[in-house]
């Protein structure tokens, strides 16, 4: 099964709606609840990152019996130093993002903790693509 969602940068009122849809699909497929939690936490963090940092993005998810393969591709500023961005507590989030309860520098590390495999392709000034794999 393949699903695709668009995410708008800055649209905090809808941040999480794609993750919510994917959570519903995984529940309908009777995926183990602890796996669903890992998937949606990783995806929600990635979705919030697009809303917080990028202009727009697309979430692609392939779900099959062996696992879920998610690509979160954004058009945005990119990440100048991925290693630094993966450091717990490091954040470039705006005051507005922090007021929403995010921007604590825990997003990428948390995605990595929940994923079986994470890769980050980023070009400064163009955008970032996350490839997230979680096996069932």
């Amino acid at each position, binding site marked *: 099964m393949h699903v695709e969602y668009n995410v708008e940068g800055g649209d905090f009122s809808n941040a999480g709606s794609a993750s919510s849809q994917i959570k519903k699909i995984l529940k309908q497929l009777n995926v183990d609840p602890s796996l669903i*939690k890992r998937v949606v936490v990783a995806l*929600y*963090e990635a979705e919030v990152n697009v809303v917080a940092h990028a202009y727009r993005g697309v979430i692609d998810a392939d779900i099959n019996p062996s696992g879920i393969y998610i690509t979160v591709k954004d058009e945005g500023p990119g990440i100048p130093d991925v290693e630094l961005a993966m450091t717990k507590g490091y954040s470039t989030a705006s005051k507005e993002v922090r007021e*929403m*309860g995010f921007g604590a520098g*825990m*997003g990428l590390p948390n995605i990595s903790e929940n994923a079986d495999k994470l890769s980050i392709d980023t070009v400064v000034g163009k955008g970032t693509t996350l490839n997230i794999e979680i096996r069932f």
Partner: protein
Amino acid sequence: MKISEICSLIEGTVVIGEYRMDDEVEYAFASDLMSDVLTVKIQNFILLTGLCNVQAVRTAEMSDVPYMIICRNKQVTPDMLEVAEESNIVIICTRFSMFKCAGILYVNGLKPVY
């Protein structure tokens, strides 16, 4: 501890999810930082927060948190109620601070996640 008991201890008002008042919960976590809530590995705990916006409820949804306490008399918005209803999340509002709620619930037997 029953949700109804929690409600009475913190003098809370249930704004949505009254049908779950007999549910039992064992663990609690208090934070205004949703990124922190998303790192909690267990499910089925009660979240105490001072953050009153739709992302707080979305975070509860993603983290499998069925119960929330919003501290310090904040006004729950229609978009928060919509997400809570969709996900069967109970929202309790109280005039007490997060510190006071946490203290009361801790001495009455709710366990910390960490």
